[in-house]
């Protein structure tokens, strides 16, 4: 396996006495698309800020391309593209001026790419940012983060203001990047169905720490809902390993279990003397179940 693009070891962040992040250990492999999900205030944005070195860690360490996040050399910064949740556009400048400035600043720029995106996304480049809609501002921010073809693209809630068509166009662009060897994407969104399309890795952030990190497929296959119909009354405390939540009523029960293994099914049917139906959960249901 090649060297990870981003690593965090026991990463923590406190502001004053308040711990925002604690004990986060994660890795991002080159070529992956990592989707970050978590409730509002779970710490997703702070995590991205600290990983990219916009704000220092209070404990532990984090690295990008092998360099300490907080002291990234300029040439490493140049390999990163970032779309913040609140855009950093200048209201008195138009889109074209933003592109020219960013291109001059970064020294390399793929004009063909940004011209194509601007046409495909119907972005008015001669209009002052102040006159742009929320969705247009977001498109411009994304375009500015893509133009220098970064090896690592980090996006914090990039699609919140986009309509479904624009979101789909953006996702397709993201997939083109995902299909190019060695390019890596890290992004957070509340639109879980988007993550299911484009992410191959999921980080679930809860109360300042990453409670689950791994392949999306693995997550879907390991957390399932069981519908149990027994011949006898079922005990309130179900003898099923890995129960996250359960409701038992007489002969029937529903249980969400984590760490599920299909091979355990025949044994479970026998132990419970019951029909056991396994239902795989959508990421949205998984998210809700794991937060209940």
């Amino acid at each position, binding site marked *: 396996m090649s060297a990870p693009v981003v690593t965090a070891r026991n990463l923590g962040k406190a502001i004053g006495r308040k711990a925002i992040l604690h004990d986060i250990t994660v890795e991002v492999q080159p*070529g*992956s*698309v990592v989707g970050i999900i978590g409730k509002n205030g779970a710490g997703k944005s702070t995590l991205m800020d600290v990983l990219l070195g916009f704000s220092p860690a209070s404990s532990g360490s984090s690295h990008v391309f092998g360099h300490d996040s907080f002291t990234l050399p300029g040439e490493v910064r140049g390999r990163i593209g970032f779309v913040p949740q609140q855009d950093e556009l200048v209201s008195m400048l138009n889109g074209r001026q933003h592109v020219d400035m960013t291109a001059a600043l970064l020294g390399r720029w793929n004009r063909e790419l940004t011209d194509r995106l601007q046409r495909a996304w119907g972005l008015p480049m001669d209009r002052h940012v102040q006159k742009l809609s929320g969705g247009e501002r977001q498109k411009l921010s994304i375009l500015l983060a893509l133009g220098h073809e970064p090896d690592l693209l980090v996006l914090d809630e990039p699609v919140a203001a986009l309509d479904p068509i624009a979101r*789909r166009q953006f*996702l*397709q662009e993201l*997939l083109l990047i*995902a*299909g190019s060897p060695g390019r890596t994407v890290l992004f957070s969104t509340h639109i879980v*169905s988007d993550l*299911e*399309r*484009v*992410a*191959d890795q999921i980080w679930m952030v809860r109360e300042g720490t990453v409670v689950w990190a791994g392949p*999306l*497929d693995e997550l*879907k*296959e390991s957390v*399932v809902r069981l*519908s149990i*119909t027994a011949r006898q009354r079922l005990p309130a405390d179900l003898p099923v390993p890995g129960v996250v939540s359960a409701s038992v009523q007489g002969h029937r029960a529903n249980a969400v279990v984590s760490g599920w293994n299909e091979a355990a099914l025949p044994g479970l049917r026998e132990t419970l003397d019951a*029909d056991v*139906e396994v*239902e*795989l*959960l*959508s*990421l*949205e*249901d998984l998210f809700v179940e794991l937060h209940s």
Partner: protein
Amino acid sequence: MHDSPTLRIFTLQPSSGIPIYRQLIDQVRRLVASGQLAPGTELPSVREVAAEYTVNPTTISKAYSLLEGEGLLQRNRGKPMTIAGGRQKSGSLPQRLRQVEAQVDALVLAARQLDLSSPDLCDFIAKKMGEES
């Protein structure tokens, strides 16, 4: 680039609980078992499927690799993958039935909860499949 004629043969639902790569594997298996994908049929490329359905290319190539491992698909240098020919024919009846077992289990559970009899259910299935019962 022209689209492969088989590009729209799949139905992929990213929001389903079933991982996309497993949906694709199940569908290829079924279509091969029934003979609807005959040996030698070209499959759309990973890129084409990923773009058509707006899904991560990694998940498509994972499915293709697993199917290749099973001997169901054949990788051809510089050309589209094809349905493998030769030894495997369309599956036997028990083999094909096993591939709908999970769905039937779910159906049986729902039918029991609704207190439907087996003949009623069979009639209904036959009607849905367009056969005279």
